[in-house]
């Protein structure tokens, strides 16, 4: 039995997951639902990475996006919850028509253009971690260091931005 059909099926399932979850993020009113569906989108994305043969990338996707970033977003959602979800009138935004026009104008040609690319060679071949690691730590060592500095800066920035000072604390507590 030929299992050729497996790959396309999996692809379309995953694709549906990615796009659908993405659309849901944009369209849903309930933010918590949006956040969780975003996590689903990330998960399906990881699957697509596996399909393309980049397993390490898929692993990192799950770790970073589904793990850290989703948690962060959820925290953010919880901290900024208004008392009772107001239902946003999604379709009466100030710039909705213009935005829709722009996005459509851009999206459609690009979408059509993407079909221009031809088929890739078969056999992903896996085992991509060794070349990846070698590349990072030799050719792109400098960029790697810079990235770590960037993360440090982001950490420090986040802490500084959200630090409460003493007076404010006591004032709040007294209230």
């Amino acid at each position: 039995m030929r299992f050729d059909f497996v790959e396309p099926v999996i692809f379309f399932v995953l694709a549906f997951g990615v796009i659908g979850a993405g659309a849901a993020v944009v369209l849903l009113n309930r933010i918590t639902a949006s956040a969780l569906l975003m996590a689903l989108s990330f998960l399906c994305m990881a699957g697509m990475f596996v399909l393309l043969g980049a397993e390490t990338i898929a692993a990192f996707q799950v770790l970073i996006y589904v793990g850290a970033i989703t948690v962060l977003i959820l925290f953010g959602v919880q901290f900024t919850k208004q008392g009772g979800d107001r239902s946003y009138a999604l379709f009466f935004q100030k710039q909705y028509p213009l935005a829709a026009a722009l996005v459509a104008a851009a999206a459609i040609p690009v979408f059509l253009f993407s079909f221009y690319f031809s088929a890739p060679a078969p056999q992903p071949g896996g085992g991509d971690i060794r070349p990846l690691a070698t590349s990072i730590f030799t050719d792109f060592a400098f960029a790697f260091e810079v990235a770590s500095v960037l993360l440090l800066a982001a950490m420090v920035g986040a802490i500084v931005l959200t630090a409460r000072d003493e007076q404010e604390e006591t004032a709040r507590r007294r209230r």
Partner: protein
Amino acid sequence: MIALVWLIPAFPLAAFLINGLFGRRWLGHWTGVIASAAVGLSALLSIGVFLEVLGGKEQTVVELYRWIGVGDFSVNVAALVDPLSAVMLLVVSVVSFLIFVYSNGYMAHDPGFYRFFTWLSLFVFAMLILVMADNYLLMFVGWEGVGLCSYLLIGFWFERPEPYLAAKKAFLMNRIGDWGYTIGIITIFLVFNSMNFLDVFHRLEQGVAQGVLVVICLALFFGATGKSAQLPLYSWLPDAMEGPTPVSALIHAATMVTSGVYLVARSMPLFAAAGPSLEVVGVVGAVTAIFAATIALVQFDIKRVMAYSTVSQLGYMFLALGVGAPVAAIFHLATHAFFKALLFLGSGSVIHGLGGEQDMRKMGGLRRKMPVTFWTMLAAGGALAALPPLAGFWSKDEIVAAAFLNGHLVLYAIGIITAVLTAFYVTRALWMTFYGEPRDQHLFDHAHESPAVMTLPLILLGVGTVVLGIAIGFPPEQGFIHRFLGPVVEAAGGAEHAPELATILLLAVVSVGAGIVGIGIGVLMYVRHRPDPAAVARAAGPLYRLLVNKYYIDELYDHRIVEAARTIAGASWAFDIHIIDGLANRLGWALAISGQGLRRLQTGVVGNYALTIMAGLLLMLVAYGGYAAGIFGR
């Protein structure tokens, strides 16, 4: 000694710096001593240089440093030491020294004492540079420098309006002349590819178009008329008498005003090769001489008389240059420096003794009260009237003789008539000051002779006035100065004439006769009152008024030229305010308005910003897509 020639201007420069920087607070009256000593040292060095040139070093170029070297254009700071510049150095430095010493006394009570010596030292420096330069550009530096110092010193007592107005007038008129000078030297460079005297004269021999040479010479001469107060740029000199008397003596009699004469004398090869230009020089000189002499006849301010006399005598020098006797011109320059400086200093002594009075109508009978001043001024006056054996006779006689012998009979006649007028007005001036009854008893009672520091230079100048002529100019045409200067200035311009003794004597007799006639008329009119000067003035009513008002030239200039300049200036100002400033203002306004408009983009709503980003992204996509698809070209 010639190698040290650059020390000659260095001493006055040092005096200028020391007095300028330290004079006000710390040096007090020592400024005068420092300045005088500096000029004295320069004078000694000049004597040394002169002796060395005399001893045979005919022409030396002492280079100080390479100043400009741009492609073809190369000008150095270098001195040309030859007989002509040696004579000028000597005259300038010796006369300057005597005037400096005199000024210590004259300016003793003036609060601006240190400032006076500062500017005067700077002036001597600039003048020395002028006569030492070996090229037109360096000479121009000195030229401008003396103009500047003239301005500073004329306007010395700037608290009153007249001095600074006069200073402005002097400077502006000089400037107009300088325009001519600049055109001249630029053309020289274009034609000869060098500004160096020796280079230019050398290349002249290879032949240059006549027309260009005439342009150059006339332009240079125009500059000379500004500096040496000839028509049409002369009217600043009488006004310049607002400055202190030593300034008038030094700058406006002996040195700065002679720089025009020096310029033409130095450029004689150029002038001689450009035929008509010498004629112009001679005619302008002669006309100026008689013109100024007529005005001097009726002036009442003793310094004004001397000022117009200077203009007139400078006219004689240019006349000499024009008729082909440059040696005579320089000779007269030297003798004139002495006796005119003496006349001015003597006038200063009189003014000082009378506590500041300059109007001769208030003087009289001073000869007993100020004997030294009187006798020295008498000698100088005689020299001015060209009485033998005083210095003025030898030089002036030679000038008119040269005019006659070279066929310029009209100019000769003008020269003789002017000599008569000169003798007359100097007699008048001296008589009104020193003889007769005192017209203002109060002034007369307080009059006193000047201190020794002032009378000593008068005596020394007097000695020079008496002996200089004979010493260097006798016998006529073959005297020391002719042998000395001849080769330098007569190189291409000397006219050949070997007159007979009889002709020379005849001409001399006529010259002396003219002088005696003038003195005689003066004596008749003022001593014997036949005819009475007041009656003559009344009889010649309109003519008299014309002369007293200096032919209304100043009014003419003001009405025509200055008004025109003001109109142009007004137009320029309007253009500047409305168009240029308007442009700048409108530009600023436009920017401000566009800024206001652009401000509306900053709505503060993040969503709008995001939208703009997306729009930009879309634009980029379109551009890239179009480029890739070949729509926008490769």
